[in-house]
C-alpha cells in the first residue's frame, strides 16, 4: 500500500511542478520577449490594483479560456477532434515518470527513491514517449478538416521523425559512457569527478552529443527555430488553428509542458540532474547544519538587497502615476522584507544543531532544488532562443536533420565507442 501512496505523492509533485512552471513560463515568455525586444511587456491585468509585474496575466488567461465559447468546425471528425488535445497533454506529462528529481528521501525510516518509476529501460521509454507526441498533433491536424491544420500535422510528423533519430543517436553516446539505460544510474554516474576536479557531467564527457541533443529537443518540442508545424506566416497557426477555448489552452499548456520536460531531460542527461557539483550527498549530510545556516543567511541577504532595490524605486517614482500603481514598489519591498524576515527567523531555531534526520531532509531538499533550478534555467534557454533566432525554412530543417545531424550523431557514437574501448 505504501508504494501506491509513494507513487501518488511523486506524481503529485510532478503535476504541481509542471503546472506551476507552465504558469511561470508563460509569464517568463512574455516578459522575456518584451525584455529582448525592449518593451515593457504585459502589465495591465490586476487584482485590486496589484499587478505583480504581469504575473496576474496567466490567471486572467485561465479565466478567459475557461469561459470562452468552444467554437469547432462543423465538418470535424468529432471523436478524434476531442481526443487530440487530451492525448497531447497526457503524453507530455507521462515522460516525467522516469525522471529522477532527487536521490532519495527518508520518510519514517524508509528510503523513498525520488523517481516515480525507476525503469531499467528508462532512456528508451523517454524516446518512445517522445515519438508518441506526434499522434496528438497529427490527430488534431487531420480531424479539424482544414488544409492548414493538416499541413501543420504533416509537418509535425516529418519533423519529429527526422529529429528522433539524431536524438536517439546522441543519447546512445551517453549510454556508452554511463553504461546504463536507467536514468537514476546515469544521474548517479554524473556525480563523479574526472581527474579530481571536473564534474563528470554529460556535457563534459559528451560535448558534441549535448549540442546534437539540445537541437533535437528543440525540434521535438516544436519550438522556434523549429516551430514549422505552427508557422503562423505560412499556414496560419498550424495544427491547433481550429481549436478554441479550453481545448486550445490544452495545446498551449502542452507546449510549455513539453518545454519543462525538454529542460528536465537536458538537465538529467547532460547537467547532472539533481547532482550539485563538488557537493556529493554524504558531504551535504555531514555539514547539513553549516549549509542550512549559510543558506538562510544568504537568502536573507539577497532578499534584503532586492527589497532595497524596490524601496529605492518607490522613493524615486513617488506619485509618478497617481493611482494604485504607486503602491506596487512598496508592496514588492514589503514582500521581500517578509522573505528576509522569515529566513532570519529560521536562524532562531539554531539550524547548526540539526540532527541526522534533518540532515537527510536538507540533503534531499537541496538536491530537488538543484534539479528545479537547472530545469528553470533551461526553460529560460528555450525562451531566449525563441526570441533571438528566426525560423528555419522547411528544406533547411530537413537538410540539417538528415544530412548534418545524422552523420554527426553517427560520428559521435563511433568516436565515443572508440574512446571507451581504449580508456
Amino acid at each position, binding site marked *: 500500500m505504501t508504494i501506491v501512496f509513494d507513487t501518488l505523492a511523486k506524481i503529485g509533485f510532478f503535476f504541481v511542478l509542471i503546472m506551476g512552471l507552465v504558469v511561470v513560463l508563460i509569464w517568463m515568455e512574455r516578459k522575456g520577449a518584451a525584455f529582448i525586444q525592449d518593451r515593457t511587456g504585459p502589465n495591465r491585468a490586476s487584482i485590486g490594483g496589484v499587478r505583480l509585474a504581469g504575473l496576474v496575466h496567466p490567471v486572467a488567461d485561465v479565466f478567459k479560456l475557461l469561459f470562452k465559447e468552444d467554437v469547432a468546425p462543423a465538418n470535424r471528425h468529432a471523436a478524434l477532434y476531442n481526443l487530440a488535445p487530451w492525448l497531447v497533454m497526457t503524453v507530455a506529462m507521462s515522460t516525467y515518470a522516469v525522471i529522477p528529481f532527487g536521490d532519495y528521501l527518508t520518510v519514517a525510516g524508509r528510503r523513498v527513491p525520488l523517481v516515480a518509476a525507476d525503469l*531499467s*529501460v528508462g532512456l528508451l521509454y523517454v524516446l*518512445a514517449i517522445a*515519438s508518441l507526441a506526434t499522434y496528438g498533433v497529427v490527430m488534431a491536424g487531420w480531424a479539424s*478538416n482544414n488544409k492548414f491544420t493538416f499541413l501543420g500535422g*504533416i509537418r509535425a510528423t516529418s519533423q519529429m521523425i527526422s529529429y528522433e533519430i539524431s536524438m536517439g543517436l546522441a543519447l546512445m553516446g551517453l549510454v556508452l559512457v554511463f553504461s546504463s*539505460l536507467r536514468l537514476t544510474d546515469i544521474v548517479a554516474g554524473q556525480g563523479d569527478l574526472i581527474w579530481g576536479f571536473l564534474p563528470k557531467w554529460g556535457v563534459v564527457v559528451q560535448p558534441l552529443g549535448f549540442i546534437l541533443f539540445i537541437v533535437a529537443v528543440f525540434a521535438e518540442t516544436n519550438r522556434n527555430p523549429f516551430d514549422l508545424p505552427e508557422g503562423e506566416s505560412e499556414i496560419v497557426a498550424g495544427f491547433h488553428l481550429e481549436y478554441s477555448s479550453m481545448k486550445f489552452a490544452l495545446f498551449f499548456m502542452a507546449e510549455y509542458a513539453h518545454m519543462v520536460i525538454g529542460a528536465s531531460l537536458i538537465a538529467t542527461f547532460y547537467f547532472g540532474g539533481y547532482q550539485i557539483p563538488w557537493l556529493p550527498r554524504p558531504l551535504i549530510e555531514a555539514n547539513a547544519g553549516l549549509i542550512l545556516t549559510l543558506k538562510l543567511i544568504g537568502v536573507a541577504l539577497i532578499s534584503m538587497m532586492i527589497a532595497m532595490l524596490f524601496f529605492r524605486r518607490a522613493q524615486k517614482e513617488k506619485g509618478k502615476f497617481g493611482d494604485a500603481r504607486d503602491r506596487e514598489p512598496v508592496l514588492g519591498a514589503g514582500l521581500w522584507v517578509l522573505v528576509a524576515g522569515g529566513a532570519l527567523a529560521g536562524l532562531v531555531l539554531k539550524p547548526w544543531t540539526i540532527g541526522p534526520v534533518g540532515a537527510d531532509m536538507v540533503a534531499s531538499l537541496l538536491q530537488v532544488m538543484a534539479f528545479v533550478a537547472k530545469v528553470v534555467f533551461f526553460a529560460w534557454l528555450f525562451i531566449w532562443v525563441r526570441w533571438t533566432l528566426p525560423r528555419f525554412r522547411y528544406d533547411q530543417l530537413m537538410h540539417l536533420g538528415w544530412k548534418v545531424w545524422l552523420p554527426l550523431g553517427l560520428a559521435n557514437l563511433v568516436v565515443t565507442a572508440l574512446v571507451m574501448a581504449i580508456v
Partner: protein
Amino acid sequence: MTSDLVFILLALLTIVPAVWVVFSPNIVHAGFALLFTLFGVAGLYAYMGADFIAVTQMMVYIGGVLVLVLFTVMMTRVPLGKRANYGLDRFVPAGVLSLAVFGLLYKSITSVDWGAGHTEAVPTVAEIGTNFMTNYIFPFEYVSLVLLAAMIGAAILIREEKFSEDEPENGETEVQS
C-alpha cells in the same frame, strides 16, 4: 487478482481497437485505432516482464511504422466525409482466408505447452544485448544487412532521374573528371 484485472484491461485495450481497425470504413480512423492496439500489445509485453521488448514495440511500431503508415494514408487517400465501400466480392475471400489463419493459430496455440507462472520481472536489456553480440551475432548482422539493402533500394527509388534528360552535360562532367 489485481494482476488479472490488469491483464484483462490490457487485453481489452488490444482487442477492442483491433476490431475497430478491421471494421472501420474510414481508413484513417482504422490507423488511429491501430495506435491503441499496438499500445495494448506493448502493455502486454510489459505485463509479462519483457520491459525491453515493450519499449521497443512502442518505439518501432508506434513511433516509427504507424506514423509513416498514417502519414502516407493521409496523403494518398483521405476520405473526408466519404466512406470507402467494399462489396461482398471482397468480404468472402477475405473471410475464408482469415478463418483459415485463425484455425491454424488456434490449433498451434492450444497444442503448445506454454509453461505456467508469472515470474518476477528482471531487467532484460543486458542479457539481450550480450546475446545479440555473442550467440546471435549472425542473425543480428544479417537483419542489419537486409535493412541496409532496403534503405539503399529506397534511396535509389526516390532519386531524381537526371541521366536521361541531361545526357550531354553528364558526358562533359565525366570527361572533366
